[in-house]
Each structure stands twice: as C-alpha cells, then as structure tokens.
C-alpha cells in the first residue's frame, strides 16, 4: 500500500517512528497517575507499604526482571539482524523474544496465584487482611500492586501480540530489510514495556527496608 501523500519512503519511516515515540509518551502517562498514587500513598503509609513489599514474591519479580531485560536484548538483536538483511536470523531472535514474553506471563501467573492463595486480593478483599493489625495501608498497597502490575501485564500481552504479528510477517517475507522501520517500531514498544517493568520492580519487590 503506497501512501501517496508522503514525499518519500524515508519521510514516511520518520513520521512513523516519531508517531511511535509520541504514542510511547502517552503510554508512560497512562502509568503516571498510578505512580502518583503510589508515591502519595507510600508517603502516607510508609510502614504498611514496606511491609507489603516484604510480603511480595521478591525472587519471582527478580526473575521476571532478568527475563524482560533478556527479551529486550533479543528484540534489539532481531532488529539488528533485519537491518543487516538477515531475515532468518531476525526471525529466530524474534521468536526468542516471544518465548521470553510468554515466560514472563507464566511467572506472573504463578505469582498472582500465590497471592490469591494467601488471601490477598485487590481492594483489601481476602482473608489475609483480616489478620492484619493495620490493614488500611496494606489494602492500598496491594490494590496498587494488582493494578500496576496488571496493567503492565496487559501491555506485555499487547506487545507479544505485536511481536507475533511481526514474526509472521517476517516468516512470510512481507517484512524485509527495506521495511525494517516497522520492526523497529514494534521493538520500541517492547522496550517501553521493559522500561516500565524496570521501574515497577524496585517499587513492589525491593524496597521493603525501613523507608
């Protein structure tokens, strides 16, 4: 499909890339309100939040951090390979990325399952909160935990879907070195998903010390 209104294919790629960046910015702001809530509620309930973090699945969260970082590297390598006109290599890297994405979701599912099992549900629901001396701040913590990691997981799903579509296009040969900017935009989105997780990880898994 040719876009008759562009002066050149190069300009079209520029526009698509810039549009992608603007979209990424709006995605960051989708999380911004939640970061605000986290900051303010943590300021209001320092101890309850620290307690909540200590209660989290630190090792699963850290494992997921490594998984996402690796996937970021993989998708970057895929893009590199396509730019060097080696689509088969690119496809292999991309499938690796996809596998890591699914791995991330699997770990996430284990983590959620553990929490549900313990009686920790969003909104202060579940038997866990009945045993606490000060459930209010912890209810806020775990609601935010579910909303923020859940929204992030949704982005992982969306990103994985985009990567799968790109992999299919690579497989059929519809995506080649000349249209590498399409893969580049998909990769950009995936890197953003990674960046968001890099910030979520300390907020929900690491900072359980006396804050």
């Amino acid at each position, binding site marked *: 499909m040719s876009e008759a209104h562009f002066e050149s294919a190069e300009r079209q790629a520029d526009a698509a890339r810039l549009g992608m960046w603007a979209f990424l*910015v*709006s995605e960051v702001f989708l999380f911004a*309100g939640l970061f*605000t809530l986290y900051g303010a509620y943590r300021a*209001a309930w320092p101890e309850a939040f620290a307690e909540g973090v200590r209660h989290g699945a630190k090792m699963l969260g850290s494992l997921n951090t490594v998984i996402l970082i690796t996937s970021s590297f993989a998708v970057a390598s895929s893009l590199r390979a396509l730019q060097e006109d080696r689509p088969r290599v690119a496809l292999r890297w991309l499938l690796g990325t996809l596998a890591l994405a699914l791995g991330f979701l699997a770990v996430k599912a284990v983590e959620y399952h553990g929490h549900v099992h313990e009686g920790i549900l969003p909104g202060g629901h579940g038997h866990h909160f009945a045993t606490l001396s000060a459930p209010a701040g912890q209810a806020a913590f775990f609601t935010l935990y579910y*909303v923020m990691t859940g929204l992030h997981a949704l982005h992982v799903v969306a990103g994985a879907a985009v990567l799968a579509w790109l992999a299919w296009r690579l497989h059929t040969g519809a995506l080649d070195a000349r249209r590498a900017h399409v893969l580049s935009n998909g990769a950009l989105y995936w890197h953003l998903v990674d960046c968001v997780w890099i910030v979520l990880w300390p907020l929900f898994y690491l900072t359980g010390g006396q804050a």
Partner: protein
Amino acid sequence: MSGRTPDAKAADTGLKAWLTTRDHKRIGIMFLVATTAAMALGGVFALLLRLELLMPGETIVDPMTYNRLFTLHGVTMVWLFMIPVIPSGFGNYLLPIMIGARDVAFPRLNLASFYIYLVGAAITLAGMYFGAADTGWTFYVPYSTTSAAALVPVLLGVFTLGWSSVLTGINFIATVHTMRTEGLGWMRMPLFVWTVYGTSIIQVLVTPVLGMALMLIGFDRLLDWGIFDPARGGDPVLYQHLFWFYSHPAVYIMILPAMGVISDVVCAFARKNPFSYEAIVWSTMGITFVGLLTWGHHMFTAGMSTFGAGAFGILSMLVAIFSAIKVFTWVGTLYKGSIALDTPLLYVLAFLFLFIFGGMTGVAVATTSLDVHWHDTYFVVAHFHFIMVGGTISAFLAALHYWLPKLSGRRYPERLGRLGAAGVFVGFNLTFVPQFLLGNRGMPRRYFDYPPAMHTLNAISTVGSWVLGASMLFIASYLLRSLLRGEPAGDNPWGAAGFEWRTSSPPPVHNWTGEPPFERGAYDYTEGSPALEGARDE
C-alpha cells in the same frame, strides 16, 4: 502521486466515499459537523438549567433532574465539543494545508480517531441518558463511587473519547515534525499551526492520566477496589490531583487553538504581520508546559496542604503572564495596520475583551485568599465561562466565518454576520456578568435553588441566556443558508496572506496542484504581497 485516482475520488460525494475517506479535509468537516451538533445539544441543556434558575425554588425540574442536566451540560460541552472542535475540526482541515502537506502523517489513524470519537460520544450520551449520571463532569470521589446512578458507561465513553484525542494529537505531532514543505522552517509556521501543535502535546501528555483515574473509579464501582476509599488507605483528594492534572491543561486544550485562530484572523483583517511572532510562539510553548504545573489551584479549599496551595498559587501566576503577552501582541498587531471590521474581526474583539476579563479573574481566583471565598461559587462559573464561551466559542465563530469560504467556496452575508456577533456579545455579557456578582454574594454552583434575595441577578442571567441562544440560532440559520446559496467567494476573498489561501477554495484532494508557493511568509502584507495582488484583481 498515482494517476487519476485522487481526482476521481474528489468528485465522489456519495455517503460511502465520505465515511471511508482518508482526506483530512473531509475528516475535519465531519468533526466540525459532529462537534457543532454536540454544542447545540450542550446549549439546550444550558438553557434548561438557566430556565430552572429563573425563579427560586423548584420550578421546571426536580433536583435530581437538575443535577443530571448540569452533568450532561458539562460532559457534552467539554469532551464532545470544546476539546475536539478546533483541533480536530479546523486543525484537521487546515493544518496540513498550512504546512504545505498533502495530508496528515497517518490518514487512516485520522479516520479511526473520528470513529473513536463517534463511538465514545454515543457511549457517553447513551450512558448519560440511561444511567442518569449526576456527579458533575468532575466525577469527584467518593460521591462518584457511591452514587446510585450507573456511572460506568459514562466513564467508558469519556475514556474512549480520550483516545480519539490522544490519537489526533500523535498524528498532528508527527505531521508538524515530518510533513512541512521544503523551506517551511519552524519559525515560519502559521501561528495556528503552532497552537495546534502545543495542544497536541498537551493532549498526548495529560489525557491518559484522566483515562486511568476514570478507570480506577470504574474498578471501584464494578469490583469494589476502593482505591480512593479512606477506610482502605485511599485519599479522595488524590483523585482530585489526578483529575485536575488532566482537566486544568484541558482548559489549554480548549483555549490554545482558539488563540491560534485569533492570531491568524487578527493578522488577516489588520493586513499586518503579528506584532511579535516570536512572542506568540514562545508564549504558546510556555502555556503548553507551565500549564501542566498549575492544576492544584483548583484545590485550595479541598484539604490540600498549605505548602501545596502556595506552590500551585505562584505557578498559576506564571502561566497568566504568557496569556497576557498574547493579548498585548494581538492589540499591537492592529498598530499601523489596514483594518477591516468584518465579522471575524468582530469576534476577535469580543474574544479580546472577554478574554482579558476571563483571564484577569483567573488571576484573581488563583490568589489564594480570594479563591477561598470564590471557589465553587458562581464567580468561578462566570470566570471559566468567560474563557470557554467568551474565548473558545468566540474564536470558534471567528474561525467559522473566516474559513467558511475556504471550506465551502461561498460567502456568508456580512450584515447578518455583524448582527449575529453583536447578539452573541450582548447575550453573553447579560448571562455571565451577573454570575460574577452572584458568586460574590456567595451563591454556590450546582444549586437548583437559591435564596429569594438572589432572584434578580439570576433572572437577568436567564434572560441573557435566551439572547445568547437566539443569536446562536440566528447565526446557524444564515450560515446554513449561505452554505447552500451563498455568493461564490473566489479563492481568497479576504486578501489574506495565510498559506491556506494560496490554493483554491475549497482545495483539491491533495491540497495543492504542483508545488505549494511558500516563499512569502504567512503574514507578509508588505509591498508585493501575493495576498494584495489577489485582492486587487477582484
């Protein structure tokens, strides 16, 4: 460009061709039609509200109906009309032409944005009608999480409308960055383009925050997650932070493009370059960014800390300066001009006067101790209607009259135009000046009833609303008539130098036949200006 397809499509005026078009001009027109219809709807709600307030006591509607009506009025006017009208309507039509492009960067996304708007609007209005939301357009918790009305459909509708806004913003940002024609540097862009660009940035940044906040209310209502519930560690004031982080900049989404219209129209009718192009550009960018930092001035009495009140107070003073600079620049543009008092310029003058008043009372309500008295009273209602109606709607009407020949190739009757402008100005002041005084007396907003001592002012305001409504009806009637039977306008009826007047009216499918002629600036009225050549020929 591919052969004869574009021209063949140009001739295609069938419904299907319109609904599947990727032409930014047609999408712009569809946005204009839809948003103007929304304005009419919101206006009817406003008239009903004023009618209830004609007499003290319960008169035509019961309290709950009144509460639903002002919610409908607010939601319709803000999200269905004022946020999209100038950027998505006029912006869509004009921005690519003004930068010498053949279309926006992502035409398909553009069409998608329009349909998302339509779907969002349908969900919102249907949700309001069947769900009877009564929270006001602000959706403050915990009222919004506990109210008996069905709120989720409305939240979903506004959330959807937000995405239309974000996608349009992304599209325009990419368009301005990558589609400018050869030789059109940033500092030669028409001022309208600058303001739409600034608006786009705001839309992309703040809209998702609102979307998230509304979603959290939805979670509370559907799943009882209570993220703002104090009993569960939540804080209702934090919702207000998130809401105003969107909704204050949203005021700039509504007024910035209006300022762009004013800048372009004042230059065209004074036949002069702007007093200081740079000042307008920098103040546009200043409003864009400093406007993001002032949201807390809506919360001085909300239980925010005194530190917060102080910080947001002084930041708000800063943003006022940028608007003030714009006012001086517009007035300065008249100096040594060649001024024709046609209808668009009359609206510019109305805008100027009302905006000075709206803006200065804005500074007044940002002054902390004064705001404590005025907050949530009719003073604030009057203040923001001076900005929204006096500002945005005046600019909208100016744009409608100024660019009607561009859009349709026809002219409106000048004499009726001036009459309509006068009617709007009189009706507007009659409606809203008394509201300042009502606010001083202490009449809170969102009251369906008031003490009998406040009757006279309320009655004047209601009569004013009728004058305003009748004038709008009058304007709509002659504009519709001239769309069908207006005098042919020629390509450049105003003798304006703006880039959009250098192609035919209305323009061909890809806007330009051949290379766009952009050597002379968009505000160049000096000797040999192409604008004046055209005017002399007529």
